């Protein structure tokens, strides 16, 4: 187990105007499963390759287990990596692929044999140690790639979108297997993905990257429930958070958020807005925090009922995603699909006020407090 620390790390390509990674600080704890997530081109793979030593760092320092690795070649960093396309050597069989790193390092033959067999046992690939990669399925190849990574017992595993070439079912299965593997080996893992579902389910902590900058770093549940900005709010969560642009107005000592002609009562959990009445705010609410009026939870402060037209109802079996239109607003709401509903129906929905998010004109979240709820209860 080893910690990974990045200090003021910058990657700048000479022919680019902007830096790919901008002055990035990050501390990954020993044994942690850290996921880098972000859209294509956000710099997540670049950052991983910098940690691997496959890409030079323009400036800044990187440490693994306290040792400065910034200028070390990949082989001296005590890392191993699983690539998106597996990168298995096609001319070598599974055994030779897994043992490649060990034989390069001239490890004792008996020791190699033991470690390869242990890894094969762990990953369930013992039956095809003598097959070449072309005779394996995608999932099996991925297991071999993982085997090659674990057999050297490095301090840090790096995964570069390892599941994106697999079909949906195999992806779910491998996701579980990798998580279990981490629980068993307890080695620090840095895992890159563009799939937020992978990030949410696997990570101890995750980093949301955009334009080479860390947008937010934290536990998946924390990032989901308290996104720091509009980018994180919309990137994490499927379907994404509903966003409405509008103004904050003050009326009878009460704050309202005004969107088009619809006025919603604004909760008082954003105290600093009180003195800051202005326009250009963005209101956010997750689809699951918009309830059917008749089913609204008793202990939850909700907005007045909004009469909506269902533009599209997408059923996923147990849940239904409703694309709603009301008073000039368009938003999505997720409901349990235990009542008949179809496109064109009209329903009444309420917004859970305590679950609202407010972002300022720069897209930065306003810190929420539980004041209003607490006061209401007392």
């Amino acid at each position, binding site marked *: 187990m080893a910690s990974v620390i990045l200090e003021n790390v910058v990657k700048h390509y000479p022919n680019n105007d902007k830096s790919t990674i901008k002055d990035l600080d990050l501390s990954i704890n020993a044994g942690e499963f850290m996921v880098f997530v972000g859209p294509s081109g956000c710099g997540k793979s670049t950052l991983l390759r910098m940690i*691997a*030593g*496959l890409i030079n760092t323009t400036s800044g320092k990187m440490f693994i287990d306290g040792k400065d690795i910034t200028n070390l*070649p*990949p*082989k001296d960093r005590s*890392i*191993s*990596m699983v*690539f*998106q*396309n*597996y*990168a*298995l*050597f*096609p*001319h070598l069989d599974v055994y030779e*692929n897994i043992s*490649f*790193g060990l034989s*390069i*390092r001239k490890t004792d033959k008996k020791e190699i044999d033991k470690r390869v067999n242990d890894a094969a046992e762990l990953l369930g690939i013992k039956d095809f140690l003598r097959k*070449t*990669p*072309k*005779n394996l399925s*995608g999932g099996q*190849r991925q297991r071999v790639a993982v085997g*090659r990574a674990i057999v*050297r017992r490095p301090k840090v595993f790096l995964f570069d979108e390892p599941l994106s*070439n697999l079909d949906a079912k195999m992806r779910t299965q491998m996701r579980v297997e990798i998580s279990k593997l981490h629980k068993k080996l307890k080695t620090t893992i840095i895992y890159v993905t563009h799939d937020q579902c992978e990030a949410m389910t696997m990570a101890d902590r995750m980093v949301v990257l955009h334009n080479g900058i860390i947008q937010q770093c934290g536990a998946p549940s924390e990032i989901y429930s308290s996104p720091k900005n509009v980018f994180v709010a919309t990137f994490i969560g499927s379907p994404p958070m509903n966003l409405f642009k509008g103004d904050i107005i003050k009326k009878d000592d009460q704050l309202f958020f005004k969107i088009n002609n619809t006025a919603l009562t604004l909760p008082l959990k954003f105290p600093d807005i009180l003195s800051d009445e202005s326009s250009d705010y963005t209101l956010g609410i997750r689809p699951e925090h918009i309830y059917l009026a008749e089913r609204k939870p008793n202990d939850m402060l909700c907005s007045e009922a909004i009469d909506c037209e269902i533009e599209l109802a997408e059923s996923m079996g147990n849940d239904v995603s409703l694309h709603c239109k009301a008073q000039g607003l368009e938003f999505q709401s997720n409901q349990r699909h235990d009542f008949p509903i179809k496109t064109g129906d009209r329903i009444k929905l309420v917004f859970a006020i305590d679950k609202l998010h407010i972002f300022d004109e720069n897209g930065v979240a306003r810190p929420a407090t539980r004041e209003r709820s607490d006061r209401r209860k007392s």
Partner: protein
Amino acid sequence: MKKLILHLILLFAAVSFIYPFLWMASASLKPVAEATSMNLLSSNFTFHNYIAVFKKIPIGRALLNSTIVAGATTASVIFFSSLVGYALAKLKFTGRETLFMIVLFTMMIPGQLTLIPLYTLIVKLGWVDSYPGLIVPWMISGMGILIFRQTFVSIPGDLMEAARIEGAGELQILTKIFWPLSKPAMVTVGIITFMGTWNEVLWPMMIIREQTMMTMPQMITMFAVGGQAGGDLGIQMAASMFLVIPLVIAYVFFQKYFIEGIASSGIKG
């Protein structure tokens, strides 16, 4: 009907191509009286001509010289050209494209143009009548670099990076990953180089005077044209057969690699 005509044309082309070779093989096995006949078959086939060649010239020594020179040159061209090809295909450094252009440019220069300066150089180095004189000038080739570079470009960079992470150095990546994945290219470069060196007459003629250092084509040319064969066609053909047989054997042996593609299934395409 169309197919039949096409096949007849192809058959004619094939026969006209192979006939001179078969005639040479046949003439080398015939007695003097029959040697000039255009008929491929004879009831009097004999190895007399081959024995005569062995008696008249040290063909065994020439065979050894040719094997050493062509073998060493081929091994060296494969090694050094693949080194340069690897660098040009996979390593990033300033001036890489310019260097590649220079390599391509060397291929445009006719060989005859460099013969005189090269000869002067070899004389100054004291390599006349020696193996280094025959081998060193041809140890790397632009054509070899080009073929290796083009082959290596198509090998996914991920394999190289994976090997690097596993602890392999650049030379190990080349020999353990890139070479095995480029067998057809290696065989192609190998055969072209081997044939070129094996058949080379002009260069050995320039720098070799000693009979013991002569290569096969040089010795056979001197023998056939120089009058030692005494105008005996059968013996001349037998000597020529010595030149051809190793190449035919080499080709038959390596032919499958020309057909064999790279089985690159470790990478999902």
